[in-house]
């Protein structure tokens, strides 16, 4: 299958390894990955910060790159960006009074990575090997906006030699919330402190999620505390085939 990768601007700049992992993984599974170079940002931060006009501009740009009559199947390693496109673009279009954008948004075919693997490709065992103790943090957008459910866990359970440990209070937000982490920094820190406490209680080597923004928040607290727990995007674990 021919798959267009929307890497998300955050990953493009800060976590290019995640984009490389998605590419490696999908190619290993026999699919052709393309990277439309005109892509930048879905507009999530502008939309959730109240900058509706700017969000509409960015949404139009996204639709121009990934939409149209022969709209490709799009895969993204960011659950919150997938949720922005699928759930929020109709709202962005309504706020902007842009019927054209509303129509274009309907034609977009954007999948979050774990959805794409499990629902579209129908695979849970992607042939990965990762001999480490891992806990999974279900990010809010994955859990409650996309409702990906246990798809990421099913993918992780099928990874050879991976020990999956349940995270206590897993469904509670890490406190990131985009601009919230800065505008309400004190509350945000109080929340991530609890998330980190739960992560450490699992004695996992790695905390994994399907959104690098939340992982950057959790990871930022973990490294500040020298907690010795790594953060990894699901794609990076699934791309691993390391041998002993």
């Amino acid at each position, binding site marked *: 299958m021919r798959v267009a990768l929307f*890497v998300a601007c955050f*990953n*493009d*700049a*800060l*976590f*290019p390894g995640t*984009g*490389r992992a998605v590419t490696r993984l999908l190619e290993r599974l026999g699919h052709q990955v*393309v*990277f439309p*170079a*005109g892509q*930048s*940002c879905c*507009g999530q931060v*502008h*939309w*959730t*910060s*109240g*900058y*509706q006009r*700017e969000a509409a*501009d*960015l949404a139009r*740009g996204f639709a121009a790159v990934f939409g149209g009559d022969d709209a490709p199947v799009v895969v993204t390693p960011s659950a919150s960006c997938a949720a922005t496109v699928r759930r929020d673009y109709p*709202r962005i279009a309504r*706020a902007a009074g842009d019927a054209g954008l509303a129509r274009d948004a309907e034609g977009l075919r954007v999948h979050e990575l774990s959805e794409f693997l499990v629902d579209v490709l129908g695979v849970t065992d992607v042939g990965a090997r990762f001999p480490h103790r891992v806990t999974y943090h279900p990010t*809010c957008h994955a*859990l*409650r*906006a996309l409702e990906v459910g246990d798809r990421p866990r099913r993918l992780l359970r099928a990874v050879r030699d991976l020990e999956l440990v349940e995270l206590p209070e897993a*469904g*509670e*937000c890490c*406190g*990131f919330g*985009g*601009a*919230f*982490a*800065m*505008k*309400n*920094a*004190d*509350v*945000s*820190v*109080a*929340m*991530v402190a609890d998330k980190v406490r739960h992560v450490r209680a699992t004695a996992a080597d790695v905390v994994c999620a399907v959104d690098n923004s939340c992982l*950057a*928040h959790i*990871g*930022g*607290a973990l*490294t*500040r505390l020298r907690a010795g727990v790594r953060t990894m995007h699901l794609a990076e674990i699934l791309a691993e085939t390391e041998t002993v």
Partner: protein
Amino acid sequence: MTPSATPSSPRPRFADAAREALADPASRGELRGSVAAVRARRAAAVAELPDWGELRAAGSAVRERTLLNLDALLEDLERAVIEAGGIVHWAADAAEARRIVRGLVGAGEVVRADAPVLREIGLTATPLPDRLPAARAGVCGIDFMVAETGTMVLLEETGAGRACLALPGPLVAVAGIEQVVPTWRDLEVFLHLLPRSAGGPGGAGRFSPAVSTWTGSAPGDGPGEFHLVLLDNGRTGTLADEVGRAALRCIGCAACVHVCPVYERVGGAPYGPVRAGPIGAILTPQLRGVGSAANASLPFASTLCGACAEVCPVGIDIPEILVHLRGRVVESRRHRPVPTPELAMMRTVAWTLSDRRRYETALRRGTRWARLLARGGRVRRLPGVLGLLGRWTDARDLPVPPPRPFRAWWADRPGGGAR
């Protein structure tokens, strides 16, 4: 009778009030325990009903239909209350409501049961037990008003409001205009939804132990004189907003409050006097406007995690309304003679991101700068002049961008050039 103290200095913004609340470890621990208990009771009570989803859908539909026909329903209600011997008063705002209530109960001992709508208009509760014997008049809130018969419905754990019904003097009930329910049949669904969502202890988490209903006034039974004060206080303005209107579906169960990770850590005070938690963050800015810094900060007092929407028994998409109101706050500031620094930054970022060349140049430059600030692979401290970003590094490291962004790697792949 005196209204509760109106603050003389402006209420602080949410982040500032929250910082104070976070500094008190004892009350944080206590809050955390009690919130977790309510949350667990709610989850258990809801899990008992296999048709909870249908009940929620029915409740949402009744509330939505009510709001769309509110004018007609309120006329029905007024007519029914008057026919049953009650008197109806309309209050445009909190001050008028207080004036009406004060005029009705006069001097002397008054019992006031606690209710959100009474706190909203600045009337606080009177401790009941020792005041009751001497009291003449009573003031209470209402949970639902049945339009077809003019019946008032009060659902309680303790019966403090019910005690008001036994007083010799006038009974004054205050209710928001949205608290109307068309028919008794419609009411039934809320008798299930409200107590289970509220997560009260024991049986109270299934059915309200004290359900009081009365219609107007009748000699020898219930209040000798009954007044209903219908409060607008920003509600008709809210009704006119297609997205924000859904906030008025609220039936006051506080399920959203008890699942909110922000509320769990800061408590109710930072949300101001109208309502606490996520519902307060969408109601207060709509009822009182976003003119004050405190009210304008409320839509931002959330990570948009969505836990609230998941439990709301009447399907209010609280995160959607929060984002909608953030837009309203930003719009209200767009036309200032000098743009806010945030507006200038957000515009610049959007401008940069909307063009490939500008985006790629910014990626290169940003990467260079961020790598200059890095120590040991992380950005550990940013200068305060960087404003909001500096607040991030107070307690968390920032990731350092690798030297080459993803698109540079892609371009170097065989056949990976521009497409």
